[in-house]
């Protein structure tokens, strides 16, 4: 009796939190599907007006939305690929090997996390301008990767720590090289964590604003986060268009997350060794 009360309370609490998290998105959805006249009327709509679906078509035509999304996608995927590529071997080394300065290196990874982007943006601007990385998506990918790699490395290290060393030793005896062990034993076993860090790195690239705003001035290289923000203060752009663009900006990210999260399942390593 007591327990079921606690259970119901927990469900309610979860629903409340979900509601708070989801409401802005819902409000965007409603706003994007409300006619302009009604938007400025006294009482707001609570349900979307299906007749207003055309807002989305108009948003596609009247704004460079597709270009922005394309650029964001390039940056997010680039950041993801580069971060994983750069993080896997260090994560393995931090987990499995002992060498001088290991702790220092491990902690040093966090330094980049402690400094706010806003503080780094000026020195980075200077550096990027020397290397002709301003106004280029490559530059943004590099900057985002620098922020994603430490986190990804640490998370991967934690996952690799969880693989019993005997499994790797068995592979060594069976004739597997170090690289072979990483590729055929370690990576498959940490697949769920790889999926998780893929999401993290992807969103680092997809959502990033400060660098994208500062380093890019070419309109054709603008990313969605910056593009969306540029509506703020522009009186001429109707609210329904802005929210339509905003929702479209969220959509690919959600789809990506849903695609990847299927792989975030626990229990991959079970069964190999007897605990």
């Amino acid at each position, binding site marked *: 009796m007591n327990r079921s009360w606690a259970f119901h309370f927990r469900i309610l609490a979860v629903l409340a939190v979900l509601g708070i998290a989801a409401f802005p998105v819902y409000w965007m959805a409603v706003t994007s599907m409300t006619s302009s006249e009604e938007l400025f009327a006294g009482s707001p709509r609570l349900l979307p007006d299906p007749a207003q679906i055309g807002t989305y078509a108009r948003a596609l035509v009247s704004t460079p939305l597709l270009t922005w999304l394309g650029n964001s996608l390039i940056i997010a995927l680039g950041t993801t690929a580069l971060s994983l590529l750069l993080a896997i071997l260090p994560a393995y080394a931090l987990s499995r090997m002992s060498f001088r300065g290991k702790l220092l290196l491990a902690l040093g990874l966090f330094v980049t996390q402690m400094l706010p982007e806003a503080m780094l943006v000026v020195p980075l601007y200077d550096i990027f301008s020397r290397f002709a990385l301003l106004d280029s998506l490559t530059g943004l990918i590099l900057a985002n990767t620098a922020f994603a790699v430490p986190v990804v490395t640490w998370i991967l290290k934690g996952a690799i720590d969880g693989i*019993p060393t005997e499994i790797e030793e068995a592979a060594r*005896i069976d004739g597997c090289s170090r690289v072979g062990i990483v590729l055929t034993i370690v990576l498959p*076993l940490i697949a769920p964590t790889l999926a998780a860090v893929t999401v993290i790195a992807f969103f680092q690239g997809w959502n990033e604003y400060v660098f994208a705003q500062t380093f890019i001035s070419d309109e054709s290289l603008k990313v969605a986060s910056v593009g969306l923000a540029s509506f703020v203060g522009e009186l001429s752009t109707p609210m329904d268009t802005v929210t339509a663009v905003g929702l479209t900006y969220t959509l690919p990210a959600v789809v990506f997350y849903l695609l990847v999260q299927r792989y975030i399942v626990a229990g*991959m390593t079970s*069964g*190999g*060794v007897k605990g």
Partner: protein
Amino acid sequence: MALRFQNIKKKFGDLTVIRDISLDVGDDDFLVLLGPSGCGKSTLLRMIAGLEEVTSGEIHLNGRQVEHLPPSDRDMAFVFQSYALYPHMTVRRNITFPLIMREHKWWFHIPLVGYLAKRRIEARPDIRELVAITAQTLGLTQVLDKHPRTLSGGQRQRVALGRAMVRQPAAFLMDEPLSNLDAKLRTAMRAEIGRLHHRLGGTFVYVTHDQVEAMTMGTRIALLRGGDIQQFGTPREIYERPANTYVARFIGTPPMNLIEAQFQGNSLRIGDRLLRLPETAPRGDDRKVWLGIRPDAISLTAADAADALPARVTLVEHAGAESLLAFDPGNLRVGHDEDGQSEIMASQSGYSDIAAGDRVGLMLDIAQASYFDIDSGLRID
């Protein structure tokens, strides 16, 4: 001369784990490394496999010096205590893995290409047949396409054995492979591994802390303690002629009784009794020794019989086929190991009708006895 260690030493930093070990085992020997937990058995085995580097010394396998070679070049298979199966691979792939590795090319690392290449090796008739035969031997045919997590402990153990078998290695190394199984399965697998050794031949090195496993499986036993070999010999030698009191107390359930005694001419004084020494027994003028006598070499008689040691029964355990009896040694001094047990133990076949508290006489069959120096604990012959 199949496997030879020469002055093997191992240190972890300042901690010496293997002091100075030299041994020789023959081609078809089943060597058991036996000893209490922490004595360095696994470390020694891992050095043979190449998973741990030797600090100094040499290891030779079939005439080839191997201690500097990486594990994959030593032609040895290793069975881990924890099985160490590849959780993400099917049983078939687990067993085939060492064979695939043999033909591995760098381009197997290319995602799809490697996947197909490995599949092709796995599907090749010679390999399929080898896997099928191995699986048949181990009773794994039904589970070849399952993943390890769906198997029972015993089946996982067999997969680990199968992975070792398909390679047809020069040496099989096993680190307490049965310790995670329940008692019944352990006995069955013990026999299984024994048969495997008979059929495949080759050198087996088997680590265990279980003396029953050691005695039943080994053709040679090396008993280790604190990184030193206490005795190296056949199970029979170790049982009948222990090299020192440690070995005497380690082997046998219950272990050998150690009773303080003194040589006197052709007799042996125990307490206030004088027993006649057999021809074969050592002599020593008034030398104090430990008399080592196995529980089954003690028989019971009346408390006041001549030549019998009077004793009071403190405990009787009936184990079906035999009964174990413990006696208060009275004013006799008895030797013991770390467990501090200081009773004289005797075993009798059948169901004993003696009860705790009874006073009996102990007849020692000293024709089967061992003698050890009272200070050093070394065997006297």
